[in-house]
Each structure stands twice: as structure tokens, then as C-alpha cells.
């Protein structure tokens, strides 16, 4: 029987998030290059921070996929927002993996019991040679740690900001998503969506997905009046 590592859990790694389909600007090239070859990274921790929607979760899941395919590092993706219901004991026994990707790290910062548990886990990871890849909306300096011991450890490795795409790059990403779905999306309609919707990439891509489904179910081409109607934009 072949076990698929993380798929059925509700916070499992999404197959859609790979390095190949990670849309990025040149500003992030160094970070992406580091992550693509993460098995050769020698430190315990690497820290990625950036705005919501910049693609942090995508990258953390992509690294899990890539290492699963290469059979290099046994990786585990832990989105802290969802994991926190299990309490700070969650890290117990996880030190057998090679790589732990802690997403939304900032959601547990400021909570003494979580920080102590993570501090202990960090030390264990260091002893066992486990790597930690951490993501947060703020850099370690911008987080209000209770435990300075944990704060200093989060700054021990490399720290990278994940930069958002600019307007042109986001429009290119929308275009690419529409093409992948064989959805005819004119430049005019795309611009219309872009000026009327929240401009974080994830949410824009979700609009394209939604419009694709609506266009299929209602058998309509994507026109400005159709988009305006189904999206409820005035």
C-alpha cells in the first residue's frame, strides 16, 4: 500500500501549490532559488515574511511537494491558524521529520505557552538536525514575542521578505490562470475585474475561478455586463 503523506487532512498540502506555478517577480528570485535547493541549506531556521496574499503558503506547500517528488527531505506543512486547536503539545514527536514548514507563525506569537513549546521544539530540531521554514506577516523584529529566547532564534537563519507582485504582474497572473482554465478573458474584462475587486492575488485568482464556473453553468461569455451582474458590482 502506498501512503500519500499529507493529502486527506483538512490542512493538507494542496496539489495546486508548486514551484512551477508560483508566480513571482524578480525581487523574490533569490528566495525561490534558496527554497528550490533547500536540502543544501545548512541552518536550522529560515524565515519568510510578507503581506497576506503574497504567496507564503504557496511556497511552503511547494517545498513540501518538491521534496516529496525528489524524495529528498521528509517535509510536514503546519498551518498554525488551523493547528492551534490542538494546543501547544502539537509539536511533540514531530522532530522525526527533516523539514517542518510553519505557516502563519505570527498567530501564536505573544502566547507564553505556545512560545515555550515552540522554543523547546526549536532546540529539539537543532539537536536532531530538523530544518524549520517559518512564515509570518511580519519580520521577527516586528513581532511582539513574549519569549526573547524564541525571538533571537527566529533571527538565527536567513530572513527574506516575500514581495507582492506589482499591478502588471498580477494582471499577467490573472491572464495565465484564465488560459489554464481555457477561459476567454479579454484585456478589457480583466482590467474591469482588477479595478473593482480587492487586489490581493489570491482573491483575484478566486474571482477568475468563480467566473469560470458561472460562465460554464450559465453558458455565457465573460463580458463586463455579465461580470458586473454575477459579482454584484454596481
Amino acid at each position, binding site marked *: *500500500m*502506498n*501512503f500519500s*503523506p499529507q493529502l*486527506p*487532512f483538512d490542512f493538507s498540502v494542496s496539489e495546486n501549490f508548486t514551484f512551477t506555478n508560483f508566480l513571482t517577480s524578480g525581487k523574490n*528570485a*533569490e528566495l525561490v532559488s*534558496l527554497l528550490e535547493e533547500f536540502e543544501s541549506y545548512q*541552518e536550522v531556521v529560515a524565515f519568510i*515574511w*510578507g*503581506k497576506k*496574499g503574497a504567496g507564503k503558503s504557496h511556497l511552503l506547500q511547494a517545498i513540501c511537494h518538491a521534496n516529496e517528488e525528489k524524495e529528498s527531505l*521528509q517535509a*510536514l506543512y503546519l498551518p498554525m491558524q488551523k*493547528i492551534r486547536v*490542538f*494546543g501547544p*503539545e*502539537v509539536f*511533540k*514527536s*514531530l522532530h*522525526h*521529520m*527533516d523539514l517542518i514548514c510553519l505557516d502563519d507563525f505570527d498567530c501564536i506569537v505573544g502566547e507564553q505557552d505556545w512560545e*515555550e513549546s515552540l*522554543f*523547546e521544539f526549536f*532546540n*529539539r530540531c537543532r*539537536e*536532531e*538536525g530538523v530544518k524549520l521554514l517559518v512564515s509570518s*506577516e*511580519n*519580520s521577527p*523584529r*516586528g*513581532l511582539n514575542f513574549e519569549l*526573547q*529566547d524564541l525571538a*533571537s*532564534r527566529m*533571527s*538565527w*537563519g*536567513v*530572513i*527574506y*521578505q516575500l514581495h507582492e507582485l506589482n499591478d502588471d504582474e498580477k494582471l499577467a497572473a490573472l491572464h495565465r490562470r484564465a488560459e489554464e482554465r481555457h477561459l476567454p478573458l479579454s484585456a478589457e474584462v480583466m482590467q474591469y475585474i482588477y*479595478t*473593482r*475587486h*480587492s*487586489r*490581493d492575488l489570491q*482573491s483575484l485568482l478566486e474571482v477568475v475561478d468563480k467566473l469560470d464556473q458561472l460562465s460554464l453553468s450559465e453558458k455565457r461569455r465573460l463580458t463586463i455586463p455579465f461580470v458586473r451582474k454575477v459579482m454584484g*458590482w454596481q
Partner: protein
Amino acid sequence: MIVATWQKCIYCLKQELPSQQFNTWIRPLRFINGNNTLYLLAPNKFILEWVKDHFLGRIEEIITENSQGETPIIILEIAAAEKLPADISLDQALSTADLTNVLEPEVDQPDQPDNRPHAEYSATPGALNNNQTTKLNVTDSFNNSLVSVTGRPAAPASSHKIQSPGTSPNSRKQRYKGELNPNYTFNNFIEGKSNQIARAASAQVADNPGGAYNPLFIYGGVGLGKTHLMHAIGNHLREQNPGANVVYLHSQTFVGSMVSALQLNAINEFKRYYHSVDALLIDDIQFFAKKERSQEEFFHTFNAIFESGRQIIMTCDKYHSEINGLEERLKSRFGWGLSVAVEPPELETRAAILINKANHEHVYLANEEAMFMAQKLRSNVRELEGALKKVIAHSRFMGSDISIPLIKEALKDLLAIQNKLISVDNIQRTVAEYYKIKMADMVSKRRNRSIARPRQIAMCLSKELTNHSLPEIGNLYGGRDHTTVLHACRTINDLRQSSTDINEDYQNLLRSLSS
């Protein structure tokens, strides 16, 4: 027969799963043999959920395939300490421990004797029944070493053999667990005014353990080199006397080991082990605060080691009398020997640390560049090290030598204080203050240039710094249309090209809002 069936099951899982998966999810499970019921106890809810979703189906399959007669019921639940059988004997408890060397399962293992209906097993192939003479390696109950226990009943303390460091089968990964880190020595400790007394005291202790400076208490903020000094002492002691049982561990590890020992009813083994060390190096003792049982145990450990003239070294983030939640008798004992402070390193020491670390990485870092970095990073050595790693990574990626412009570029991500949550309201307020206009004018209908231009700049910044849609931004500026926002953005972007003043204002506002 449940025991044998479970043995087969974990053997199959061991074959089918990658070792990390097995170690992470299956190994922590404990097994209790019930009345035709197979209880699997997970250490926490997370592991329980994961096993349920990923492995329980397969476990059921294997158990069904291998059951002779009635298939046992499988119950997966969380193993709270209080659920362990109260009358569990030491050898039974030890049978729950990890077997590091996995054995082939024996097909016809007899079940537990009737008088032990609750015998418990780890989810490890080879954790055979207790009637056999089985060599067990107890790992988690004594975190910093492997203790081999042979035979049943439990062997007396004198037969315990402490394995030397580095004999762990898990040699694939770098390990410091309970071991001295050989990279931390006196030779590579950079001395400065801030740490010279602590270094001198440490060197004294390393040369004369158990002497006047016992215990040695090193205290100071995070990332200032306390742990480095502690390891340096330990390495020196080991160098002088290779047979010495020098034990380094973090206080949280001590607490964890003690909890495991209590759960496994093996507290006497725990005591014997720690009371017998030649030198005990215990890091970050502030984590003992409010843990009364651990303090009690450490108190006895301290007395045993101290009274026999062996050395104790401790680090802490504050002076011993200032640790809240620590018993007075411990605080006073911590002060019996010598207490030395480590202060944050001064500029020259920080620069010297950077140059030393760069040399270690075979990278050339000139004095000027080291001083530049040292000026920017003042808090602790870990942050300095992190920054240097980033600079080296950036230099390699760019294929350029390390220079001040390259350092500035590389450290932008580290030095940025935070990615503030910027609201349109905050932008309007900041722009209004900057141009000394009223906040109300941001949303008013007034169109004279002294009002309209700042408003356009604020709109442009709102588009740049938030993810609000253009209609939303328009609404927040007095119900304006999204085309007005678009027009404002275009106008300001054009003006920034043609007017240095506008560009400067824009940059000033951008900096003030995002730092």
C-alpha cells in the same frame, strides 16, 4: 494473540512507510491489550487525528488479515498520563520505551500473562513481551543519553550502561542532543569588555572543576554567548579527561525527562543517572520557574553533585535572585559559587564576531563592512549571525563580493521593522498632517489645488499600500467614483516623474507609513 497481531501490524507499517513518517506518527502510539480490544494511545490530539485520517484504515486492514479468530476492536484515543494503569511495574513501564534497533517480529509471541491484563507496548516492532530477556534502549526518559537496561526484573543501577555519545543509530542528521557541541570552544569565543570576566571565570572552572567557583552561574540576555561558554567549559573538561561524564542539557529537557520518568514509573533511574554525572551543565534555568516538581528534583540533583565536589554550571537570562517562581532554597544555592554576567557586546566585539564567523565560512569580510553591519545590528549575536548568513547568501546569489551597498540590499528584509497593517484612514491622517490640511478635507468636495493634490497623493498611496478595490477607495474619499481614484493615481505618477518636490513628498510619506 493481540500482542502478536499488533507486532505484525507495526512491522508491516514499518515496511510500508518512510522512516520519518513511521517515527512521527506510529512510533509515539502506545498499545494496551484490553479484553479483545486493542487500545492505541496517541500522545496528543494532533497525532490522534492524523493517525485516524491517514493510517487507521490500514491498521484495521492489517489487524483483520492477521487476527486468528475474532478480530479485536481497535480504539484510538489520547493517552493522558492518568490513563496509564496505576499498578504498572517498572519493567512493564520500560517495555513501553522506544526500541532503537528494530527487530523482526516473531510470529508466535505469547500474549501477556493473565495477571498483567494491561501490559503496555510501544508502537515499535520488536517491543516484545516482558517475559523475555529483551534489551531495551530507553531513549526518551533520559533525554541526553541512551540507557541500556537488560533483563527482567529491572536491572539494578550498577548494571546500567551509559552509551557514549555518537552511538545513536540516527547518524544521518547532525545531533547535539544531550551532547556537547564541539564547535563551541574557548578558541573561537570572541572576547571583549562585555564578556571578559565571564570568559575568565569559565576558563578557571574548566581548569579546576569542583573548586571555588562551584556552581558557576552565567547570566545575561539572549544570544550573548552564555551557551557558548558553557559548551566551551564542557569541551575542555572532556579534553582533559575523556572519560568524564559531562552532561549538557537544556532545563526544558530536564523537565521533559523527569515527566517521562514519572509516567514510566522510572524516577529512581532518572535520579541515579543525574546524580552520578561528573559535571552538569544546565542551560536556561529560568524555565524551572513555577515548575515545582522539577525544582524539587533539581534541588536533590544539585545537592548530590555539589556535595560530592563535582561541578555544576548554569546559565540564566537574569541574576538568580531575580528569577520569579523559583524556590528560595534554589536561588540561594545558585549563589553559593560564582555568578558572572555577560553583557551585550560592544561595537568592536560585534565586528570581530562577524569577521570570525565569516572566516569560518571561508568568506572574506573586510573590517569596514564588518563595522557597518555591527553598527546596524546591536541586539544579540544570533541576529548578527543570521544577518551574516543572509549577506553571504545574497553575495553568492548575485555573484558579487561583499560591499556596503550589497550589505544594505541584503539586510533590507531583516531591518524592516514590520509590515504594518496600513489603513486608508491612517494614510489620510498622515497625508493631512504632512500637508497641514484638515482631515475633513480628505473627504470634502473642495477642489482647490492645495487640497486636491494631497488628496490625490493619499489616494495613490491607498492604492499602493492597501489591497482595497478602487471603488472601495473612492468611497472612503467622500464617495468618489473609482475613475477619480484611477485619475489621481495616473496624475501623481506623472507628477513624480516631472517634479522632484512631489516625488520627495511621496517618498517621505511612503517611508513614514511603512516603517
